């Protein structure tokens, strides 16, 4: 009985693999795009950060204390500073901060040093340094944070020392003198955390996108072109045609998704290069054999489910245009399933692993973190397989329907 299925799979695969354009658009273009996009993004981020670092901020300081110029010199804060006195109107400077031509305005209270020196006990007035900056401008934001960290904090520290004599009195205890030695982490879980946010979402979308472009053409397209009917008059069961189509589509979307996944893994360091120093180290994934098998099974069943969902829509639709329209809501649901893995904080309830689409995303996430339990895995596979079987049944029924196949 499987003779027809086998032949159809062979033909569908031949169709794609003998067509240079198809190979290029399905397998080569996505890889080039992802690697290109990621390295471009990485480069842009690196450039941007370098640009901010080399930019010399433009500052206005109003009413600076007498010794402040000395402090700036000591801290080696590199900036183009204009000092203005208390009487001057700052409205113009603020406008220029808004349009980005000035990065920072710092205003000292009028009797700044006097107030500090006059301080005796609690309740005495404490003067203020007020900064004005524009967080929407990268230069301004960076100038402000550097100024506070490198100038004002140092200035404050030296004044404290002056006031108290021994500054260690303030340091009641240290927290992590050497922060790098305090981190105890399961490296797999840490790496998994980054990927587990990204990959379930990407895998879901990629698999579905592959199934979508291929499925609509292979089913609605054939219906439109009249080539499907040539198979309907062959002495094979409708279910053989359905299986042949679904399995070949699943193989092709699987390959296409694998190309995506490999490209992402290859391209990730290129992207991460841009964020270097932000805690994203090398990404290495290690799976136990059991996890590898689980991943494989999940992927296969997900591909099959997506392919069958697309196929069901494709077989119902009269034209490819119609099919593409109808398939969009399913695509959105698939995306939501992926996005929801971002939100799910902590443990997901076991029952939730019965919700198709969502469960595979969560399972993939847990698998990458090394936390997928057998029960969760079983629930996921079981419910997905059940839905896939029902959808396959519906497709076969659609293939048997005169109304759908012949518009009769």
């Amino acid at each position, binding site marked *: 009985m499987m*003779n027809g299925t086998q032949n159809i799979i062979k033909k569908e695969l031949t169709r794609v693999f003998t067509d240079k354009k198809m190979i290029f658009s399905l397998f080569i273009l996505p890889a080039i795009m992802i690697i290109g996009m990621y390295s471009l993004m990485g480069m842009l981020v690196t450039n941007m950060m370098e640009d901010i670092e080399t930019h010399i901020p433009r500052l206005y300081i109003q009413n600076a204390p007498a010794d402040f110029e000395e402090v700036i010199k000591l801290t080696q804060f590199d900036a183009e500073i204009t000092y203005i006195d208390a009487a001057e109107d700052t409205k113009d400077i603020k406008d220029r901060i808004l349009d980005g031509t000035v990065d920072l305005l710092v205003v000292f209270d009028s009797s700044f040093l006097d107030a500090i020196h006059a301080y005796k006990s609690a309740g005495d007035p404490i003067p203020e340094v007020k900064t004005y900056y524009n967080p929407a401008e990268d230069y301004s934001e960076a100038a402000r944070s550097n100024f506070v960290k490198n100038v004002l904090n140092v200035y404050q520290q030296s004044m404290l020392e002056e006031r108290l004599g021994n500054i260690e009195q303030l340091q009641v205890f240290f927290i992590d003198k050497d922060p790098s030695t305090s981190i105890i982490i399961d490296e797999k879980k840490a790496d998994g955390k980054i990927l587990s946010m990204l990959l379930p979402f990407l895998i879901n979308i990629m698999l579905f996108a592959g199934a979508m472009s291929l499925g609509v053409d292979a089913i609605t397209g054939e219906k439109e072109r009249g080539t499907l009917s*040539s198979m309907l008059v062959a002495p094979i069961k409708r279910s053989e045609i359905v299986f042949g189509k679904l399995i070949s589509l699943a193989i092709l979307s699987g390959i296409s998704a694998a190309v995506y996944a490999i490209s992402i893994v290859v391209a990730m360091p290129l992207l991460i290069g841009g964020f270097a120093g932000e805690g994203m180290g090398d990404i290495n994934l290690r799976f136990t054999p059991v996890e590898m098998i689980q991943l494989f099974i999940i992927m296969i069943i997900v591909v099959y489910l997506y392919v069958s969902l697309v196929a069901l829509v494709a077989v119902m639709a009269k034209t490819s245009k119609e099919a593409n329209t109808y398939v969009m809501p399913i695509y959105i649901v698939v995306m939501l399933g992926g996005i929801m893995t971002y939100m799910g904080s902590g443990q997901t309830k076991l029952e939730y692993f019965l919700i198709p689409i969502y469960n595979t995303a969560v399972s993939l996430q847990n698998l990458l973190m090394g936390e997928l339990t057998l029960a969760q895995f079983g629930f996921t596979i079981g419910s997905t397989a059940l839905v896939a079987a029902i959808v396959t049944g519906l497709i076969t029924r659609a293939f048997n329907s005169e109304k759908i196949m012949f518009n009769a």
Partner: protein
Amino acid sequence: MIKVDDLTKVYKLSKKQMIEQRTKKNMKKAVKNLSLTAKPGEIYGLLGPNGAGKTTTLRCIATLLKPTDGNISVCGHDTVKDSEKVRECISFLTNEIKLDPQFSPKYLFNFFGRLHKQDEKTINDRREKLFNYFGIKDFEDKKYEELSTGMKQKASIAVSLVHDPQVVIFDEPTNGLDIITARNVTDYLKLMKEEGKTVIISTHIMSEAEKLCDRIGIIINGALVMEGTLKEILTSTNTSDLEDAFFELYQLHNKEEA
């Protein structure tokens, strides 16, 4: 051998179709109590205007549609209960059924041969024979989409014959073809007849029916209003050619309907 016994086919109409066809009924009887028999070694022609029910009848015979009422048997198999067996012994050709544009006639021939459960040797032998007969050899490796209309038609016919079918069903065989390609097709139908196959075609072209068909069934508004050889039809309508006979019958039966 094709036996159609009291075939009725009713389509349900969608709201849109009801508006298009300006009807308030949500059912349309495409074929009404139609019975006919096509025997081996003859070409049976279903003659009728557009929308008379010719294609529906042929699709029912080819197992693509299920009769609402009545039975059809092809080569002794029921088209509903034994549809796979029926499909094994028929070849159904229509301009709406097309072959995959990206494949060569050779690939498609082999593919359908395997779907028909033929072994490789039989497939190769038959391909050799049919491709030679139809002159497909020169372009057997070209993609179907690159072929001219005539070449396509020849390739479709050859592919549909891969399993040496006993029954050939051809919906509007010469529709849209130029005179040379049309001749190719009719020649092939005659050849099938000589080989003792059962051939049934539908047409609205009088001259084609006159020249080609051994027996003609005239179908109007879904009902078979007359059946017989050309001579029998002319005698019973008391006319001198098929066109006149057809109009005679059309006026008579279309009036009844209205």
